[in-house]
């Protein structure tokens, strides 16, 4: 039975995110833990449900186990629905030609029949690797008002950063008349956020045509959008103002975590725009007699006995007496021993930092030290010293340092 939906979302979550190194060794980027209790994908899924979009297809490919287990029936995001809800959509074997998802456009192409179940007028294309809160329903109203074939969400970036993005040129700030994918000499500072609303009929045509084109790399930014521009389709830019951050690198992931503490634009406690997550089952966290915590967030189940400054502490983390954690992110189930020191670092889940170990370096004043990263299930031995900027992975035992 077809239950017609006006707009459904397709969330591209198949990327490896290789610039996050050891943090995405066994999990897809959207499943990387963030902000004390969330995973990156929670922001996009929460935006969907808060914007009244109740069908979300999540396209997975790279290391989907953790992501699948996390999303499951979608209940934490209120996406377990009689009609619709959230679906994880891995590539599958077909009668005839079977393939992996070859590019962003190809991934959607391979799921045309999923989309058509809902007979939508519009399809919202999203990616699962940004931290932001955005009301897609406002963008959809804009799209309808302009009778656009495609609306691209854009954000103003500095000229210096513009060459890292897809850059949109407009006539009057709205009507798109040019598009440059990661240009050396950007003609504008309106960066595409990788959020598109298409008229489904139009997108369908372009996906089918693009699939038939053997020279195409089957990518929205490189192929579909330039082609639509070439054909003079009705294309609009929707300006977004607010917090938006690509967390595709170690530095940007660390910065976004620090922004929770220091940037008023990233709000996780807005009662009208909750960020939902699959919650751990743990009692409130405990701060001990010797604990001292300032300008930090701490999640449930943790037991604090040391000093914590400017840090994001996930759930079920234990810190020993005399330990110091500064400007760092410590993910769930990690144990920090007595007198251990962690500065300017990202410590992944299930890490053991033994007594007296030192990870990273403390900067003087505002000096920024390179971020040190310790991969999940690693053990940092008692008294060991990990220099700033080092990336450690001992998930399969001791590596040769």
């Amino acid at each position: 039975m077809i239950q017609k939906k006006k707009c459904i979302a397709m969330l591209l979550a198949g990327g490896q995110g290789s610039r996050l190194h050891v943090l995405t060794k066994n999990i897809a980027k959207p499943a990387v833990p963030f902000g004390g209790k969330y995973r990156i994908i929670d922001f996009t899924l929460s935006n969907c449900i808060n914007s009244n979009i109740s069908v979300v297809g999540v396209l997975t490919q790279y290391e989907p186990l953790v992501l699948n287990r996390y999303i499951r029936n979608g209940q934490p995001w209120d996406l377990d629905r009689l009609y619709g809800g959230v679906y994880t959509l891995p590539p599958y074997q077909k009668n005839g030609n079977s393939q992996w998802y070859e590019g962003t456009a190809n991934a959607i192409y391979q799921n045309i029949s999923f989309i058509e179940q809902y007979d939508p007028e519009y399809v919202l294309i999203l990616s699962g690797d940004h931290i932001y809160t955005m009301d897609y329903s406002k963008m959809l109203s804009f799209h309808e008002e302009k009778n656009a074939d495609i609306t691209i969400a854009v954000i103003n970036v500095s000229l210096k950063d513009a060459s890292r993005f897809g850059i949109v040129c407009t006539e009057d700030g709205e009507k798109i008349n040019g598009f440059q994918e990661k240009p050396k000499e950007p003609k504008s500072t309106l960066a595409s956020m990788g959020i598109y609303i298409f008229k489904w009929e139009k997108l369908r045509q372009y996906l089918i045509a693009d699939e038939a084109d053997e020279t195409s790399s089957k990518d929205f930014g490189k192929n579909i959008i330039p082609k639509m521009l070439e054909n003079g389709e009705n294309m609009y830019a929707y300006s977004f103002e607010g917090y938006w951050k690509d967390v595709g690198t170690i530095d940007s992931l660390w910065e976004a975590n620090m922004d929770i503490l220091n940037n008023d634009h990233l709000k996780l406690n807005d009662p009208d725009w909750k960020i939902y997550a699959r919650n751990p089952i743990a009692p409130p966290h405990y701060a001990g007699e010797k604990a001292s915590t300032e300008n930090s967030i701490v999640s449930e189940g943790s037991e604090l006995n040391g000093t914590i400054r400017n840090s994001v502490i996930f759930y079920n983390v234990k810190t020993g007496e005399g330990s110091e954690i500064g400007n760092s992110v410590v993910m769930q189930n990690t144990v920090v021993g007595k007198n251990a020191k962690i500065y300017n670092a990202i410590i992944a889940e299930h890490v053991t930092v033994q007594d007296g170990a030192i990870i990273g370096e403390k900067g003087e004043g505002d000096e920024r030290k390179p971020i040190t990263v310790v991969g999940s299930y690693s053990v940092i031995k008692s008294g060991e010293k990990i220099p700033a900027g080092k990336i450690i992975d001992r998930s399969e035992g001791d590596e040769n340092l």
Partner: protein
Amino acid sequence: MNAIGIVFSNIHDNELSVFTKTRTFGAVPFGGRYRLIDFVLSNMTNSGITTVGVVARNNYHSLINHLGSGKEWDLSRKFGGLTIYPPYSTTTGKSLYNGRLEALKNVYNYIQRAREDYVVMSDCDVICNIDYSDVLDFHNRLEADITAVYHRADVSSLSSKNAVTYKIDGEYNIKTRVGGHFSGTQNLSMSMWLLKKGLLLEIIDEAISTGLQSFERDILAVNPAKLKIVGYNFEGYAKQIISTVDFHQANMNLLSSSVRSELFKKDRPIYTRVYDAMPAKYEEGAKVKNSLVANGAVIMGTVEDSVIGRNVYIAKGAKVRKSVLMQGVVVNEGSVVNSALIDKETVIRPRQTVSGSEAFPFVAPKGSII
């Protein structure tokens, strides 16, 4: 486990009357993020009980709101699962029950229909982590008719005249005493009983025809049918809540790491409703020692020896000691809160002092402005 659970959510309402004005006993917030009923339901779920009936008497909106479909306790099931039984008005026009036996009349059909052979009955007044399948094994080994769960506790400070204690008579057989003056360590009832479904139905039938009300007083203590009633001594951590003093103590006990490790076990967790609050935020100048802090709390002031609930706000210069702050409480700048139990959404205005003692904790009802 071959048993259904029956949970009495109201039985002890009078004992925490300040908190039960707006809700049932089982829905009283506890330990920063829980409600009292969470412990019973989690114990049942963790013991493998998948059919649980919750009997409610009045003011059960907050309870229903908390329990929802039961999914957080894994009790949203196609077969069995969680069912809430508010009073059922019959043609006699009498709808509110006065005792446990009358309450059981309301769920007679529910018990009768169950496919399981045993019934575990429990109130919500004891904080513990117990495995009912151990109780069932014990029950069967002794070929008992009724097994009552108790723990060894000092009852000298118990303020309730209705405390139920058991006198051991022989090796495991017990005699039930309701009220009476006892001091020192006694076998204190944990308000949990296990018996065969058929026997329970017989007892209810008998109660209906003779007008009995109290399971403890009229059945256990009198034992007219000469049943074999045995006591199961629970040796883990258990804390009865019979008064606001106990309630305060039970919260304070959570600050002990050995109590936390006995209550919040990795393989037998305590489940509760999820609120999607962000992690707790410590601002510049926050000083928090020996305290439990739930998600959503924002702390700028000083907190010692306290239990801080979800979304509690403690402003700069505020001092909280030996207190229990339930969800959404706001303590404004410069205020001092000492040995107090502050119910949900209470606002303490700037530069106020509220102070109680361990023997007489200050109590603020829900939504007060102080």
